[in-house]
């Protein structure tokens, strides 16, 4: 709860609340004084508030002024400092106070009264007692008027003694208190009753928790693997959907799944020393695959199906593709290997994509059949071997660093 207003009524005896600064809040306003002589609620000098003079069949009401308007739901708590020994000497605590004709209140009488605790609403000048009980007040009793849209309650020392579902007045209004005949015209505004520690608390903002989503299947998650020495993924069946796999290994990565299905996710693999991709079946669709290996990269899939994605391979020393069947369409292969590249697929079909291979030491292309159509091909290497029995290409340019060799010159 948040304290919107509080007054411990400390100050000089006889000070009108209208001239008194509360502990929290901006002040007090006298809004009703029906007597023929001016009555005030004033400090009694001992941490309480009482009437300045007595007038029978009259009333005085003060409202608590807050820095910001109150919300419609709040609690008002007071402590009984003194009760009258007589009858009909009433005190009231008001909520949703709009004016003298529209409010809720708890009305507290004396031990000599019957029905000396009442929950009351006054709307358009008409008073309705929502619930009442005979429950004698005593010095030190703590009363709370709890105002919610759904329910209005009166609690005495933490125990509910009155309640009502009435919500005929919905405006926030103001909190306040007073003495006299607000509920029953013959009640009196007497100097005997006193209250202390007037407290107004508002509800905290609702705590809204957005729950986490869960997928029914074991998917939709990210997997990030960081190992320093060796990583071996050797599941007999691995199905991954809509998630990212990030693998960083300093020395060795071995991916040896029999069946690996990968869809719609990004994969980032970085290995410093050795990387072996040896899946029997490797299906990859719609995602980029960047592979970076400092020393050795071996891809030895029996079947590799890659569509519409880019492959970027950076291997410093050795790069070998030993895929029995490689079907690649609409994608680019960019390979940069400093020392050796070995492309030795039995069947290599490549259509409408670019192939850029740069090898510092040796580049070996030894596919049994090589179909290359409609794409720019450029191969750079200090040593180059094209060992294909059937090479077909619309345009091939193979160049050593010092020499350009084109298909037309050798046709």
């Amino acid at each position, binding site marked *: *709860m*948040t304290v919107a207003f509080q007054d411990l009524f400390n100050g000089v005896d006889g000070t009108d609340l209208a001239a008194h600064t509360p502990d929290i809040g901006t002040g007090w306003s006298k809004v009703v004084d029906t007597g023929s002589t001016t009555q005030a609620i004033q400090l009694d000098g001992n941490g309480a508030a009482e009437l300045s003079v007595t007038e029978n069949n009259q009333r005085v009401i003060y409202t608590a002024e807050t820095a910001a308007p109150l919300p419609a739901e709040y*609690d008002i708590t007071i402590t009984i400092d003194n009760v009258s020994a007589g009858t009909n000497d009433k005190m009231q605590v008001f909520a949703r106070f709009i004016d003298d004709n529209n409010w809720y209140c708890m009305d507290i009488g004396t031990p000599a009264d019957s029905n000396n605790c009442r929950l009351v609403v006054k709307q358009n000048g008409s008073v309705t007692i929502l619930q009442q009980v005979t429950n004698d007040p005593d010095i030190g009793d703590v009363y709370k008027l*709890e105002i*919610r849209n*759904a329910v209005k309650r009166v609690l005495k020392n933490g125990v509910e003694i009155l309640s009502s579902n009435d919500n005929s007045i919905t405006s926030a209004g103001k909190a306040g208190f007073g003495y006299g005949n607000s509920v029953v015209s013959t009640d009196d505004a007497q100097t005997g009753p006193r209250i202390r520690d007037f407290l107004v608390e508002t*509800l*905290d*903002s*609702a*705590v*809204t*928790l*957005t*729950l*986490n*989503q*869960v*997928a*029914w*299947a074991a*998917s*939709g998650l990210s997997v990030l693997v960081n190992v320093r020495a060796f990583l071996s993924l050797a599941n007999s069946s691995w199905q991954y*959907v*809509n998630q990212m796999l990030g693998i960083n290994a300093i020395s060795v990565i071995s991916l040896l799944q029999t069946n690996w299905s990968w869809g719609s996710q990004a994969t980032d693999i970085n290995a410093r020393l050795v990387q072996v991709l040896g899946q029997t079946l490797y299906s990859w669709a719609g995602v980029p695959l960047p592979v970076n290996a400092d020393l050795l990269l071996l891809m030895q899939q029996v079947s590799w199906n890659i569509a519409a994605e880019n492959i970027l391979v950076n291997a410093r020393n050795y790069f070998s593709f030993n895929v029995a069947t490689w079907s690649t369409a609409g994608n680019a292969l960019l390979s940069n290997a400093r020392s050796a590249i070995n492309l030795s697929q039995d069947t290599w079909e490549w259509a409408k994509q670019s192939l850029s291979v740069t090898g510092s030491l040796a580049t070996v292309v030894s596919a049994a059949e090589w179909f290359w159509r409609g794409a720019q091909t450029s191969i750079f290497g200090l040593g180059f071997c094209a060992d294909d029995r059937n090479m077909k290409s619309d345009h091939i340019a193979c160049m050593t660093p010092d020499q350009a060799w084109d298909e037309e010159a050798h046709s």
Partner: protein
Amino acid sequence: MGATTIPAKLKKSQVDGSAVIDFDTDVLRCMLVVAGASAPNVSKSGVQFVSDVVAANAEVTGTGYARQTLAGVTVAFASGTDTVEFSFSDITFLQNPAGFTNARYAVFYKRVGADDSTPADDPVFAIADLDSDRSVQSGDLVLKAPTGGLINWP
């Protein structure tokens, strides 16, 4: 916010038909339980029904607390994808100065029968970790399904 989990037994019962939930027509409810010694066990040896959950994680108590029936339930494809999403309107546990103070897990289940009097046949389909003990003594507690639904089937 902590993880939301689906009991393994619920997955199995949903597949083998032993305790099937129709997510858009059955009466689906939300209850709150305390932290207990540990989180409810959602493995294949763990909870399946409401009675299993409350055996280890008691339901919260407090003035004004009541289990809530999910409203505004939807089961639909996510826009532009083949993913099926299950969602619902915000669940509000109203403030009460004497309300509960120790709700740690939200338990979602299907109510079988006319009321909650037979917890041993009410299958639990999700358990959400609320991260810490939650109170309603000073303000409402609202549980909101995430964008894309509490559960999805990709």
